[in-house]
């Protein structure tokens, strides 16, 4: 797979794993843009990484072996490590530190941390699946009833599929993803120019409704918010204003 630029498969892995220096990054990104087979291979690597987190991130919140907890904190295992808590592991660590009397200071509120973790997962899922040529969705819109029933049951709330047709975006299907161990639904929309936006939905990570919050990363933009029992993140690669129009449509459609 070595091209004129002299990049090899090893460089591709190093790129995916963040092992390359800044100067090489720009060169390899140019090479990727011109070499579809390398881009496809990179995508396969990213997909594997993503699915690996999907499979194993539950382990981050698993209760510690009782003996280990006692050895580390000097207190008997109480199994207070809450299985139902879906906050980032770092927040749980703060609890661990506090319980043993180290009193680590907290950087952000639990809601902020949970919100960042939520939208990060939404961005990650968007990056992986919206660029998948072969299998962008797990269940296509041809099986709409199955899609809605199945995802609603898994996320534990009735899932709505907002209509964005007046803005040119059609629902093409969706999939179940893991939001740090909690079931989340990803709905994918596409317009005639094959531009995709994803709506990522899971049980609310905060207990009150919120305003739109915005984040931008790696060329992607996302608005996220909580409305009743569910939290939503709408992600796309477009100007912020355009995505805001879509987010507004989603919000209106769901609340109406």
């Amino acid at each position, binding site marked *: 797979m070595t091209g004129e630029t002299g990049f090899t498969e090893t460089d591709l892995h190093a790129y995916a794993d963040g092992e390359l220096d800044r100067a090489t990054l720009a060169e390899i990104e140019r090479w990727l843009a011109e070499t579809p087979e390398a881009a496809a291979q990179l995508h396969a690597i990213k997909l594997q990484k993503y699915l690996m987190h999907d499979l194993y991130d539950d*382990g981050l919140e698993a209760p510690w072996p009782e003996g280990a907890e006692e050895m580390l904190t000097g207190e008997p295992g109480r199994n207070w490590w809450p299985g139902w808590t879906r906050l980032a592991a770092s927040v749980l660590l703060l609890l661990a530190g506090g319980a043993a009397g180290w009193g680590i200071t907290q950087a952000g509120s639990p809601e902020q941390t949970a919100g960042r973790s939520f939208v990060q997962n939404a961005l990650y899922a968007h990056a992986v699946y919206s660029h998948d040529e072969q299998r962008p969705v797990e269940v296509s819109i041809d099986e709409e009833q199955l899609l809605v029933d199945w995802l609603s049951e898994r996320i534990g709330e009735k899932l709505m599929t907002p209509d964005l047709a007046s803005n040119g975006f059609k629902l093409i299907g969706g999939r179940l993803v893991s939001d740090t161990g909690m079931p989340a639904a990803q709905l994918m929309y596409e317009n005639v120019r094959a531009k995709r936006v994803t709506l990522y939905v899971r049980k609310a990570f905060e207990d009150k409704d919120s305003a739109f919050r915005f984040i931008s990363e790696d060329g992607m933009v996302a608005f996220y918010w909580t409305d009743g029992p569910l939290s939503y993140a709408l992600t796309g690669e477009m100007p912020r204003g355009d995505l805001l129009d879509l987010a507004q449509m989603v919000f209106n459609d769901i609340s109406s």
Partner: protein
Amino acid sequence: MDKRKDIIEQMPHLMRYARALTRDAVAADDLVQDCVSRALSRLHLFKAGTNMRAWLFTILHNIHAQNMRTLGRRPRAVPLDHELEERRGAGPTQDAPLTARDLQRALDHLPDEQREVVLLVGLEDMTYAEAAEVTGVPVGTIMSRLARGRERLRRMMAEGVPALRSVK
């Protein structure tokens, strides 16, 4: 600096890696328990300012390798979730999307030395240098195991795992 605090910080990662490595929550608990116990008994050997994460993972890795040698413990297969297929009322189709389950099946068929590196780098975000320290092999070996392991996973996920397919 309290070294115990540094160990506590790594606990979620040790738990996750141990579960991925053993595919068995009970075996993973034993492994982490042994790792913490050994780490605490050798805490005086840990040099301040060096990498606590790599040190702990090295200990965990060595205990696991020893378990595999002496007990001949083989990983168990994980029950598959057929819920979606059941709802469809049909068996898995060839065009079914790639899911975590496909990866799980493929990982189960990867040689241990490749699986470890794929997990350390892909799941635990270790640098190649850290993965080399943990597994005790040169960085070049890490890179080739990673490339071979990932290519094998990609092929198994695309083409299926022959042994399992004939059983199903």
